[in-house]
């Protein structure tokens, strides 16, 4: 009996101590987080405490796996060039933004460099989750005055430079040259109009005897390129002054067009299929991000090329990037900036462009054309990328993903005939108003 009591007492004490210790640790983290959230100077102070010992290792959070090819792995090369051990933490893209928000909220210091998306940078700066880089940049060789205009505009109003763009990805029209040749249609150009695109899609569609489509003229817009179509049809998409989604007649027009093309069998219906119909040779054209150049590489079984997204009422393109920024809780801020300096330098940017096909956001580096992916031999119209960059704006990427995903779900319902395009756009706008500015 005595032994049992002793055992019970020991176990209970262990559980209570463990629970209290756990709660205590959490409490400390919260406190630190609130301090970081309230002051910027705190971040500056901690950067001074950076010592040679702790600066030897820097952790960077990204959403995409680094290249398996060592020469194209910019983080590995950054480690070699700076002598700092660069550790990469890959967070799945679907959870990336929310994970980073949680890290900032809890004052997590396990990551030194965040690559932050467009819609998060202002919030992170506001709560003191990331530090201003101005002091570092004053002594750095990074050519901040050569950033493309859209990047400079996005940083306005933040009260400093909190992030540096790792690239400037755009959206493009990919097309299957073999199918165009077979149909006797001239290849798309960067000046193609939206009407040219629709007419070509119609001609390129192949149907079976029973009326079902065997080869589509074009794929359905994906989560990114819906917005290129809506912006091209005349809508502002994103109002940076109010931070609101602005869609209306342009969206109705584009959704109606897509619905008609789906009805005609020129485009596939929205479905649960995950296959890439363009890569599978089941669609002649596709609107996709420039990063797919690197993904496709020389791996497609047909000749293909790229062109600018066709122009409807105006030339519109959504820019995509991520911003290298330093965690305010990082104990290795000096080392983190050294790594960023390499990644934003000529060599780091060139490696990134070669691996992904995305140009640098620094004009003078982008002009050197490292983004012309060497493994792709069929692309001749590389000008499509520079042309797209000129029309590029930070649009839907500055909105919460829940708002844009909800809008696309509404558009898909309209395309499937479950509601009118007008209702879909109205619902999407209403949901955006409910959500943004919360």
């Amino acid at each position, binding site marked *: 009996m005595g032994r049992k009591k002793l055992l019970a007492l020991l176990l209970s004490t262990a559980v209570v101590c463990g629970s209290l210790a756990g709660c205590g640790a959490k409490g400390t983290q919260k406190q630190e987080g609130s301090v970081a959230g309230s002051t910027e100077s705190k971040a500056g102070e901690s950067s001074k405490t950076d010592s040679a010992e702790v600066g030897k290792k820097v952790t960077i959070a990204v959403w995409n796996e680094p290249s398996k090819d060592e020469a194209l792995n910019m983080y590995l090369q950054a480690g070699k060039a700076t002598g700092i051990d660069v550790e990469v933490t890959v967070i799945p893209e679907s959870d990336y933004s929310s994970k980073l928000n949680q890290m900032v909220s809890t004052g997590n210091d396990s990551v030194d460099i965040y690559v932050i998306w467009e819609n998060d940078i202002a919030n992170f700066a506001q709560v003191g989750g990331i530090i201003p880089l101005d002091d570092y940049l004053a002594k750095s060789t990074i050519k901040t005055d050569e950033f493309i205009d859209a990047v400079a505009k996005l940083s306005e109003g933040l009260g400093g430079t909190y992030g540096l763009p790792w690239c400037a990805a755009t959206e493009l029209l990919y097309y299957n040259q073999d199918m165009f040749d077979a149909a006797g249609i001239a290849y798309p150009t960067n000046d193609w109009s939206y009407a040219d695109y629709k007419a070509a899609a119609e001609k390129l569609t192949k149907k079976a005897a029973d009326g079902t489509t065997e080869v589509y003229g074009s794929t359905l817009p994906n989560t990114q390129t819906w917005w290129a179509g809506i912006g091209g049809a005349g809508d502002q998409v994103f109002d940076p002054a109010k931070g609101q989604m602005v869609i209306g007649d342009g969206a109705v027009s584009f959704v109606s067009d897509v619905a008609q093309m789906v009805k005609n069998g020129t485009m*596939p219906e929205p479905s649960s299929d995950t296959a890439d119909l363009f890569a599978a040779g089941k669609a002649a054209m596709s609107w996709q991000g420039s990063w797919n150049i690197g993904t496709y590489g020389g791996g497609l079984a047909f000749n293909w090329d790229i062109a600018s997204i066709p122009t409807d009422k105006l030339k519109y393109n959504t820019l995509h990037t991520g911003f290298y920024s330093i965690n305010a809780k990082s104990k290795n801020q000096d080392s983190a900036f050294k790594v960023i300096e390499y990644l934003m330098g000529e060599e780091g940017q060139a490696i990134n462009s070669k691996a992904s096909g995305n140009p640098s956001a620094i004009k003078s580096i982008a002009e050197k054309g490292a983004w012309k992916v060497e493994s792709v031999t069929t692309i001749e119209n590389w000008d499509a990328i520079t042309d797209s960059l000129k029309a590029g704006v930070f649009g839907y990427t500055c909105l919460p993903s829940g708002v844009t995903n909800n809008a696309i779900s509404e558009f898909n319902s309209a395309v499937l005939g479950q509601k009118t395009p007008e209702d879909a756009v109205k619902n999407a706008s209403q949901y955006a108003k409910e959500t943004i500015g919360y």
Partner: protein
Amino acid sequence: MAIKAARHRSGRRPDGKRKGSGRKERSFVPLSERIVNAMKNEKRKPINKKKLTNHLTAYAFCAPWFIGFICFTLFPIVFMFAVSLTNRKLNGISNFVGFANYVNMVQSPTFWNSIKVTLFFTVVMMVVTTIWAVILAMLLNYKQKLNGIFQFCYFLPSVIPTVALAYTFRTIFGKEAGLLNAIISQLTAKNVMVNWLYDKRTIYLAVFFITLFTYNTGQMMLIFRSGLNDVPRELYEACDIDGASPFRKFFGITLPMISPIVLFNAVMGCISALNGSFALLYPLTGESGDPNGMTQVLSLLIYKEAFSNMKVGYACALSVVLFLIACGFGIGIFAVSKKLVYYEN
């Protein structure tokens, strides 16, 4: 008839009390009072010290569970209520806003659609999975060769993680490259292109079909099977003598005898449908509950608001509603069960 015999054996008196329960009833004394009394009596009666020590030992053994309950259940629930009164964002910004989240919620058509879908999904999923589990358990209850293998095969899909199961079925139910359409096309010699997960006529059919393979259904099946084994054989023999049909046997004997298990599984099925539907629907139809919000249950909406829109305060307010719905279902099922569930003792 047989059930009346069973009731007779159970020894229940017409006034509802059991035979032989003539013990002198003890008056109820609250636990705290008993401890205080024990402490008072400690000096007078040294023997009570042992009793008190025994009580404290018992509480010490219970303490780990209580600590766990307080830290990981009670505190999160209370915290959720508190956060629902703020405009907390995922990055930690938070201000007290009173009942603004609840006001916004009741004004949102998305919320009301989600409530409708949640109630529908919960009721239908509970009914479908319970019926299917009973059918499987009955099939397995027949004495035949290789019964163990059948049970293994029936239960196997249930041990696959729900997310993996959902992704697999997403591929199977694809329109252009879906396995199901390919099979139907082969069988009918026609090019069948049903958009299973995006067509409003087929979405529920597809989703509820998938629920038959979830862990919850497999677990229910095993519980029903053990319940069926406990139904006395003599009741069926009595039915055979009376010439009852299998249908009559099921509704006259089997169902009443396993009704407590049906109640248990119904409650578990409800909670599972309310809370666990996220793991099934998120990979299958996305956070917006395609098509046209037809599968946007509350758990999906909570995730979307908290992690895609970063509105943690609002998501907590939605969670409070989900909590109340779960309570409502639990209370409702127990209320109905008083009339429908048969307890032998």
